[in-house]
């Protein structure tokens, strides 16, 4: 591992699971490609903030995040068990269930960003 990469890994928050750094978390500033959390939190990378995403971009981002996770399941008392395949389909269709999944995923992303900011403020002190 290079010195630079070792330093980068050490500065990452222990509260953020390692796989989350590589999952897509936003789009590039020109909106052409998804960027992982690692790049979203890199100040030198131009990226769209979560609030700048269109509904279509938001749905595709969430669908891709769900696809890339090793396991995914959520139970809804209304809809029953939603496994990975159904979740991806519901999100891409932007159905009622899809919107719930999008909201949950956005909460995960918001919490990840909060954790990054919190860790950075601790390190800055």
């Amino acid at each position, binding site marked *: 591992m290079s010195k630079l990469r070792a330093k980068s890994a050490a500065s990452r928050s222990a509260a953020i699971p390692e796989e989350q750094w590589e999952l897509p978390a936003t789009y590039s500033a020109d909106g052409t490609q998804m960027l992982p959390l690692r790049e979203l939190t890199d100040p030198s990378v131009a990226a769209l903030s979560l609030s700048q995403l269109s509904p279509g971009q938001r749905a595709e981002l969430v669908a891709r995040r769900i696809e890339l996770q090793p396991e995914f399941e*959520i139970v809804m*008392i209304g809809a029953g068990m939603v496994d990975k395949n159904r979740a991806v389909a519901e999100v891409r269709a932007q159905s009622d269930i899809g919107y719930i999944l999008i909201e949950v995923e956005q909460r995960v992303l918001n919490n990840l960003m909060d954790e990054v900011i919190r860790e950075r403020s601790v390190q800055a002190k």
Partner: protein
Amino acid sequence: MARLPRRRQRTINLDVTVIAIDSNFEPFTKAAFEYRQKHVYPYLEGRGFHVMRFQGPLARRYYAAPAARRPNVDYLTGVGHGTHDTYTGDYYDPIFSIGNYNQEEVRGKIVHLLSCETARSLGQDFVNQGCLAFFGYDENFIYHQGDSEVFFECDSEIDLGFADGLTAEQVYDRAIAKYNQRITEMRAQGKLYVAAMLEFDRDHLRTPSSSEMWGDREARLDDRERSQPKRRKKRAGSDP
């Protein structure tokens, strides 16, 4: 010698009845039902409430509705499937549906439904018909199967809080505190999705603390001075 007036103490025992209407015909409501059987109803009974259970095949309108109309019923609670205007029981039997229930079933009562969406319309309709306070969700109630008890525990704080004599506002605060405690724990364990799902349920819980559309913040279950001795006003010259 004048006789001193004797003080008499009278105890009025008003049997406060809770109506429990729980579905358990498929795995997702069954998990919640089993949690409530183990943790909620024994607690209510331990606090002196009489719990009438309409569960499983008995969670049908033709059983539950007449019981709800009885005069000593103060609290309705349950888990079941729902939509914005309907709460259902066994195999989706509509228990309460807007325009298809009697005002007497909810008037003067507190209602808590662990169900999807019922806070959107049904809960507000209950309040318009005289329900004191409604607790429910305006979206799907979601949970993670591996941590289901954590979700049911947070929701059950509502029943436990009312059993402890808290006001609707205090019950809400207690439930939110439990949600927040569990969210913090899940984040610390790296269970980010479980934490986010708990946040989702917490933020879609509607109660009188959200708005008067869901009733009175001061509503509580012991308004009728349940099992409390009736005190007479102290009169001059009487014993202290």
